[in-house]
């Protein structure tokens, strides 16, 4: 039986940051990683642009990950790689984890758990693409794995559905490797990826972006031979007269990410339907005592810098965890706000400063974010632009708002004022 104060599940940017921070705060830390190497998805994100907020540099994914891995190794934090958590059981005040690895089955007794399990991609079936089931339908992440880690080409001529960042990055990457990207089709009237990615990944390479369009059908028996695309109306229904068949060998999907919370679900941890991640307090502790969540498992981030930040928050607090009863006020997304993290403020905690992450539901220009406590506006911040692809981060000190257990805090966007 291995014993730990803080056990972190997932060795990507969130897990690494959590492990380092928990170690800094004196906890005995164990990190568990499913794959052979630490770094998570950053291993295959070989493009640059990571770490601008944190390091003021444009690092590539592997470089960003390796900065943390270096510190992780220097601190001699224990890591179990190629190890998979099959089960978590509650044991007294803590938890017992069952691990499987090439050495066999192991048990870990831990006081706290940090879930840093990242996210997964939505699939073709989840966006209801119909037709045949040939080879040649990939998620952008799978295509990225093939190209950047395996050194093989999943396509020569493709259509990309969805303008999520990985899709845009892959459009450029595949073009650089000699493939022809015929177009990026986006269901929404606005792009889902960052504006600069639209420019540096599509415009630079003359790859057309078709907004309010979707792929409706796939053709081909063995290998994909064509897709059908169509423009959609306001209700996102394909317009028949615009249906068009495009010959290609692949359909690459970048249609959204979903936090991976299968382990959280086995523990019956409350999940926020808006984020698809666990409901957490300002310390990123879930509604289950001693279990924390961070990174893309908590909510899907667009910048890795914030993934690391939430990892640190979780790591620091997990290291300091003591059993106690928490009392909560609740944060809710109001008008124009898609989601808010954290969803709870633990009023028994000394720290009433919270880093609040939120996303807008649609594009707003010249607007302001208001924080309403029990009907009264207590905080306001102005924004020139709010866009759904861009997560916003604000720090709010709730200490002065005189919150009581059961109070509601609403974040809403007020339009047209600046």
């Amino acid at each position, binding site marked *: 039986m291995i014993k730990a104060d803080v056990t972190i599940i997932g060795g990507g940017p969130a897990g690494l940051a959590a492990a380092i921070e928990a170690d800094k705060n004196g906890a005995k830390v164990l990190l568990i990683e*499913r794959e052979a190497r630490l770094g998570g998805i950053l291993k295959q994100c070989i493009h640059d642009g990571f770490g601008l907020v944190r390091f003021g540099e444009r690092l590539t994914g592997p470089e960003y990950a390796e900065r943390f891995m270096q510190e992780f190794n220097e601190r001699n934090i224990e890591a179990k790689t*190629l190890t*998979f958590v*099959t089960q978590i059981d509650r044991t007294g005040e803590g938890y017992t984890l*069952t691990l*499987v*690895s*090439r*050495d*066999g*089955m192991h048990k870990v007794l831990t006081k706290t758990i940090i879930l840093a399990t990242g996210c*997964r*991609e939505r*699939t*073709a*079936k*989840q966006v*209801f693409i*119909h*037709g*045949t*089931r*040939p*080879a*040649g339908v990939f*998620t952008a*992440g*799978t295509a990225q*794995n*093939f*190209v950047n*880690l*395996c*050194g*093989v*080409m*999943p*396509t*020569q001529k493709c259509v990309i559905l969805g303008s999520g960042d990985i899709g845009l990055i892959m459009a450029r990457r595949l073009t650089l*490797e*000699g493939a022809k990207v015929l177009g990026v089709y986006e269901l929404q009237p606005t792009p889902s990826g960052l504006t600069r990615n639209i420019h540096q990944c599509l415009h630079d390479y003359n790859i057309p972006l078709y907004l309010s369009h979707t792929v409706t*059908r796939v053709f081909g*028996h*063995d*290998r994909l031979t064509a897709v059908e695309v169509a423009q959609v109306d306001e209700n996102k229904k394909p317009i028949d007269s615009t249906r068009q068949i495009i010959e290609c*060998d692949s359909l690459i999907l970048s249609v959204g990410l979903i936090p991976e919370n*299968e382990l959280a*679900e086995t523990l019956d941890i409350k999940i926020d339907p808006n984020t698809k991640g666990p409901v957490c307090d300002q310390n990123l502790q879930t509604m289950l005592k001693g279990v924390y969540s961070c990174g893309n498992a908590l909510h899907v981030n667009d910048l890795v810098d914030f993934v690391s930040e939430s990892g640190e928050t979780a790591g620091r607090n997990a290291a300091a965890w003591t059993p106690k009863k928490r009392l909560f006020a609740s944060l809710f997304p109001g008008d124009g706000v898609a989601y808010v993290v954290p969803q709870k403020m633990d009023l028994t905690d000394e720290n009433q400063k919270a880093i609040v992450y939120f996303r807008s539901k649609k594009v707003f220009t010249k607007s302001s974010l208001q924080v309403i406590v029990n009907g009264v506006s207590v905080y306001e911040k102005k924004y020139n632009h709010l866009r759904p692809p861009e997560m916003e981060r604000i720090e709010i000190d709730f200490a002065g708002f005189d919150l009581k257990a059961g109070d509601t805090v609403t974040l809403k966007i007020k339009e047209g004022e600046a």
Partner: protein
Amino acid sequence: MLKRAKKSDKIILTVIIFWCVRKMNIKKLQKRLDEKFPGIKVREEDGCRFVTGELDDWDKIVKACSMCVSKDKNVHVVNDIVFTGKADAPMRVPAQTDNTLDGKRPDVLVIGGGISGATILRELSRWNVDALLVEKEADLAMHASGRNDGEIHPGVDLAKGSLKQHYVLLGNQMFPALSDALDVPFDRCGQYACFTQNALKGFVTLYALKRKYIDGCKETYIISGKKLRKKEPNLNKEFKFALYNPTAGCICPYGLTIACAENAVQNGAEVSLNTAVLGMTVENGKITSVQTNKGTLYPHIVINAAGVFSEEIAKMAKDRFYSIHPRRGTNSILDKKAGKLLGSIASVKQLELHTHTKGGGLLHTAHGNILAGPDAVETNEKENFATTPTSINTVFTKQKVTAPDLTERDIITYFTGVRAPDFEEDFVIEKGRKTKNLIHCAAIQSPGLTTAPAVARDVARMAIDILQAEKLVLRNEKFTPVRKAPPRLAEMPVSQRNRMIKENPDYGEIVCRCEEISKGEIIDTLNAPICVPTVDGIKKRVRPGMGRCQGGFCSPLVAQIIAEHQGIPLEEVTKSGDKAFLLFGKTKGGEEL
């Protein structure tokens, strides 16, 4: 003498009357056809009803032929109507050709690697005969057997007198022992046919009594809505009562097909995948040779278990006396998270709905997912497995009545299968009518999975009888009915799993996170009696890629394991065999230095 003469006269007279009645029946039928489908002709010949003419609408062809079905069960409708609409694509055949089977002289050649062919091959392997199964696809169970809901039917919807009904009752009873022997999980979960209208209770009770006491479906009960909800709390609160069939169950249909074939191979039979029958030579009422893309075979007996293509095989064998009209159906699989919705099989029954699909509805699969479907749509396209939004909508609209919490959001995948019914809507299980060394196991539609083990016993018996008339055929003394599935580590107790990993560390390396499948389990399937080194082949056997990520994370890993095991470059690995390549060579412009 006089008396005798009279007797034979009587016989002749009876025959003449019978013939006249038939003629009249045909005349009447023709009249009705003329009214509904002018230009369509029917004639009776050789114990078949040939329907001829020209139509541009496939549904009309199906209707016209269905009208011509005879009351005499031995008389089949043969569809010779020329379809002038969009023709079906020609049968897909494997790209590869070689001579690996050339000159082979198997005692029995089974055509078709679906559940019928696989169970027949297994039954044949109980004997000391050379049995060879050929399948044109890269894997077994690629058509109807791999694309159905896996329900083991109770037979409650069938009346006495059909082959289907005869075999469904026999087959259903065989499943516990069969699944045990072959190590394929079978769950006798029971089935509920649910009704919202209390007024129907009397009628349904009578129906159930008839099934029970006349048709021999012994276990069927009427239960109250209250009792139904106690067993299945998430079903519609409006259900007033249900017909409960405890003998219904579910099994993984392709898992069973693969297991049967593997067991047959263990016992000495042979399976050749990627092998299509392209032609036959028939001389003096006997098939003398069979041409395939892997050479010419000289089988003693041929068994036609070719599913949607059984009519084509019958035609090649000059023994076509029935016609297949393909019927498409789409099933959706829901995330295991939604598995709590129900633990059995259930469907709303509305009397006005008359479709040619049994069970249907919602089903808790042997793997713990919920399956919704299938629908039933007539089609001329035998191999069009494309899904359409309409099918999913039809199924969900209907099944949301069964379980109001059912939601499309939980769908992780969906697939379409094409069933192979004839116009009589019964099986064709008999020796060739003109061609003597041929046995048909054709027109197998629902409940073909349930009936397969019982049908296979009879078909194999027919083949052995033909062989025994010519030579001595002994039982296979080494036959074992037991086949071990590759170990499923995730289902083992920790200590046993630990022991297995110590022996083979690959069992400790998880490749598929959604279904918790190890590298060792994947390698096991590649070392199985029938190796199908494709991503889909492995997915069917041990399920990596069957979970919610649908292979997003694990497909590159699975492809790498296949490449390593087969000693081929990664870019030669296929999704489903043949030309279904996953990749186009290496990056860096593909050039090696």
